[in-house]
């Protein structure tokens, strides 16, 4: 694996056992998406994550789900998750109140190649809720801004009302050496920004392909075309990384559900380099 994974949780706590944590805030991002912040016990390894990793979130008596961590990795006192309410467990998660408890396991999986990207430009390509697992990488780059060259953030969404982190996104665009562009599938009458799939923004990006590392997260079809297009534009394939989604029940490689070709997405991924995952991306029903 080209991407680093953090150490496993300590042997004293079984990997399948959640840590009860207190919800500290729930804020509405869009009509169906919320950002949940929890306070893990101080110093607990559950909060030591690398950008791109995920946790298993447990709602007492309801169920458990893999959710990417969307907060700042430098802030160890809290863990942040951006969750779209699409089913029973996600609905229960986003309707928690501050003071409620949820269970957290993890962190699990591989992370974005921030070390490899040092000295290079970084191109972030996000689709929909895919911006959430990329936000820790953006925070990390902004904290160590001198280590990186240009930062380009491209973000595609279905409609203006689905755009996440709007204020933050606008602020990123104003930073020096930083480009932040968004586009939507359907603009409506008031939208003055770009319309089209996220790959249509590539022509507006100012970067040197050979010196750029791309990090992509979004719907699988979007990642396939984004990676293909970036390769065509001269990015070396090994400098393209994407984060895969599969059904995950355990996060630890036991349940077998997340297999994709030779990989367990939970432990070999979710972040893969393009050459690792490319042979399996185009296989329908793999």
């Amino acid at each position, binding site marked *: 694996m080209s991407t680093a994974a953090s150490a*496993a949780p300590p042997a004293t706590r079984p990997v399948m056992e959640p840590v009860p944590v207190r919800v500290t805030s729930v804020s509405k991002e869009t009509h169906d998406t919320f950002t949940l912040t929890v306070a893990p016990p101080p110093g607990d390894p559950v909060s030591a994550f690398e950008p791109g990793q995920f946790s298993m979130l447990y709602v007492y008596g309801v169920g458990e789900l893999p959710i990417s961590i969307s907060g700042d990795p430098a802030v160890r006192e809290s863990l942040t998750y951006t969750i779209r309410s699409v089913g029973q467990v996600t609905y229960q998660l986003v309707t928690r109140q501050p003071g*409620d408890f949820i269970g957290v396991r993890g962190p699990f999986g591989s992370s974005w190649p921030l070390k490899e990207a040092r000295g290079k430009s970084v191109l972030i390509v996000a689709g929909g809720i895919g911006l959430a697992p990329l936000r820790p990488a953006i925070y990390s780059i902004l904290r160590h801004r001198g280590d990186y060259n240009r930062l380009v953030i491209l973000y595609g969404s279905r409609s203006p009302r689905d755009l996440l982190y709007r204020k933050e996104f606008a602020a990123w665009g104003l930073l020096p050496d930083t480009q932040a562009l968004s586009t939507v599938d359907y603009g409506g009458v008031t939208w003055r920004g770009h319309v089209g799939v996220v790959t249509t923004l590539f022509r507006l990006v100012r970067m040197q392909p050979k010196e750029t590392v791309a990090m992509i997260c979004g719907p699988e079809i979007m990642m396939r075309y984004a990676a293909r297009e970036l390769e065509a534009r001269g990015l070396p394939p090994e400098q393209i990384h994407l984060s895969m989604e599969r059904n995950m029940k355990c996060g*630890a490689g*036991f349940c*077998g*559900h997340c297999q994709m070709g030779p990989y367990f997405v939970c432990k070999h991924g979710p972040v893969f380099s393009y050459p690792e995952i490319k042979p399996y991306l185009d296989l329908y029903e793999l």
Partner: protein
Amino acid sequence: MRKKSYRLDEKGLDALIAHLREQGYQVYGPKVEDAALHWRPITGCADLPRGWTQELAPGRARLEPDNSAALFHHWTCAEGLKAVLHLPLVRIMAARRDNGWFRILDNPPPAARCAFVGVRPCDLAALAVLDRVLLGDRYADDIYRARRQGAFLIAIHCQRSAPTCFCASMGSGPRARSGFDIALSEFAEGDAPEYFAEAGSPAGMDLLEACGAAPAPPDWSRAVEEGCARAAAAQTRRLDAHAAPQLIDALFDSPHWDHVAKRCLACGNCTSVCPTCFCVNYEDRTSIDGREAERWRLWDSCFTQSFTYIHGGSVRSSVKARYRHWLSHKLGRWQAQFGTPGCTGCGRCIVWCPVGIDITEEFRQLQLSAAAAASFATKD
């Protein structure tokens, strides 16, 4: 020097089982139940399936009367040792609600010292595969480890092969080479069966010595080798798993998958009886008043529609894709993941498939389709 091979009669085998029970082991053996053989707790040789043999064929498993005094004139139990060691249903967590906060309760793994009598070499090999999957990777399965570490294994070499066996081509049998505490071979020509017993571990040797087992006659070892060699030679099915990793990706578009999919019922029998299929699911159970919540782990099957469900639908929604995943993983990708194929040649998936789909035949047809596609490509 202490001899490593011993001669046991039925009394000796009974004494062995009794000794294990005295040491606190729950002793499991093949036992007739519901007209099939299953791993069940036994107390002595009387519980073993004397007078029974098996008729095993694609889609067919029958217990048949057998006139011999042998205790092991059968082949495989319906399920592998995973039924006892990688539990089909186990509680992995218990929690209690207290004023909006919830507490994780102690949930010690159901530790048991398990001993097994009559483990076939294919099942012993399957245990080595499960060890690699469940204990040898980044995370270890605590429940499996607790049961596996204390397990005492008494293997039995196969001196006859069933029509569905293909362990010889998988290199896992018919003779067990390692991984056992004691390995038996049965000689049942007369009225009373006798056993050639090899110690495979210090614990095995201690147990045989404690039971007062006599040294084995010098020619027995060769007789066992010959019996196992005959069993290997009698196998008509074979599978070339070493070819699988290179072939699997090329086979993805093979028309043969459609041919299998027309027959496959996606019932998941093969994954239930496979001694190495390890996939599980997790379920939450909550008491009616909401005070107690539990998570249970249960065996799952990659043949179910929900197995690959993510927001938007299942990744593998066709039966063709599910069978392709199972075979590709079992024979090919397992080797990339764990350095060994996930198949040991026990033949259970052939026997217990309601429509008799035969993994050896399907793989052979897939190899032929790949060869045909390759020759077609070169003609172009």
